[in-house]
């Protein structure tokens, strides 16, 4: 249905669209990082795309450095979903970023709503947005080290702001060890520290 947007994008950007796909009705286009902002502006302003509603922006960590052999050059994927309320179609634009020092231009100028979402991606994945007006952590606190949604951040590595009181014991720790059977939590070997 909304293959239209993908066709329009390919016509306008040619080889700068790395890949297009449609899976279960979701249309996805992967854009080269250099044309990221232009492609987003295009789907917003092109009268036949008309995707003025900013639906979502987030990222995916595509490889776990501890276990995966996947190319670190494409480790992070930042995606944005835009929707057209009048035309009732939506598109997902993606950009792939390297594993070390991922950077991309900000979309705040295209959709003002990208502000918080990019802060969240920065907080959770450590992707920097060039030109972002207010790059701070949003869900965790400023003292937090690391980026929790990266696959190599152990899920239960807490960084308490306060020292815990004396004399309390970790109720969950012994419980989980006593369980003695796999809870199908992956990756679990070095997760429980």
């Amino acid at each position, binding site marked *: 249905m909304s293959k239209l947007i993908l066709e329009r994008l390919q016509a306008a950007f040619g080889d700068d669209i790395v890949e297009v796909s449609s899976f279960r009705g979701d249309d996805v286009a992967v854009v080269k990082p250099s044309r990221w902002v232009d492609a987003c502006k295009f789907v917003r302003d092109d009268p036949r795309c008309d995707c003025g509603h900013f639906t979502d922006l987030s990222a995916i960590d595509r490889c776990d450095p501890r276990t995966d052999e996947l190319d670190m050059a494409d480790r992070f994927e930042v995606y944005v979903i835009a929707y057209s309320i009048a035309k009732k179609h939506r598109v997902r634009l993606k950009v792939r970023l390297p594993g070390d020092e991922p950077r991309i231009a900000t979309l705040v100028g295209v959709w003002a709503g990208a502000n918080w979402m990019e802060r969240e991606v920065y907080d959770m994945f450590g992707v920097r947005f060039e030109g972002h007006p207010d790059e701070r952590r949003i869900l*965790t*606190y400023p003292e937090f080290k690391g980026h*929790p949604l990266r696959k190599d*951040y*152990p*899920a*239960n*590595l*807490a*960084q*308490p*702001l*306060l020292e*815990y*009181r004396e004399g*309390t014991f*970790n*109720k*969950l720790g012994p419980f*989980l060890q006593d369980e003695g059977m796999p809870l199908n939590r992956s990756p679990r070997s070095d997760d429980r520290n």
Partner: protein
Amino acid sequence: MAELETRVLGGGESGFATTKFELLLAWARKYSLFQYPFATACCGMEFFSAASPRYDIARFGAEAPRFSPRQSDVLWVVGTISQRQAPVLRRVYEQMTEPKWVIAFGTCASCGGFYDNYATVPGIDKIIPVDVFIPGCPPRPEAVLDGLMLLQDKIARCDRTPETVKNTQLPAGAEETLEKLYQLRMKP
């Protein structure tokens, strides 16, 4: 006031009772608890329910919520406390005036619940002392009332050891009563 030998005085009679001053004070305190609901998460919904007409926590002498820690006696920690929230909670606790009690409402406040991860404090007793733990995710309003009554009991006994609300069995015949109530309500 277990120490008191209770006898209702008849008309025109007069009398006196002896007790320890602390116990008298504790007895007076237990029925006038000003509460500070530190509601953060899902459990807040059940806290509303417990305060709402059907469960009506006011019947137990804990009606008045005070949103200033300085005026309150009981700190209800209702919901998950994240690492980011923890300093706030401790500050609120420190601002309360003695005597003060803390109720950990729900599993998250008691032990972190199933949020066993980087973001959540595994139980508020890591941060502040707790008097009563109410388990449940979220606890039913009945359990909340149980927790409040347990706290009152502890206040009367001047007992500050942490305690957990125990599972209560339905009294015999309760199922039939409930069924009867349901039938009654279904009548047009």
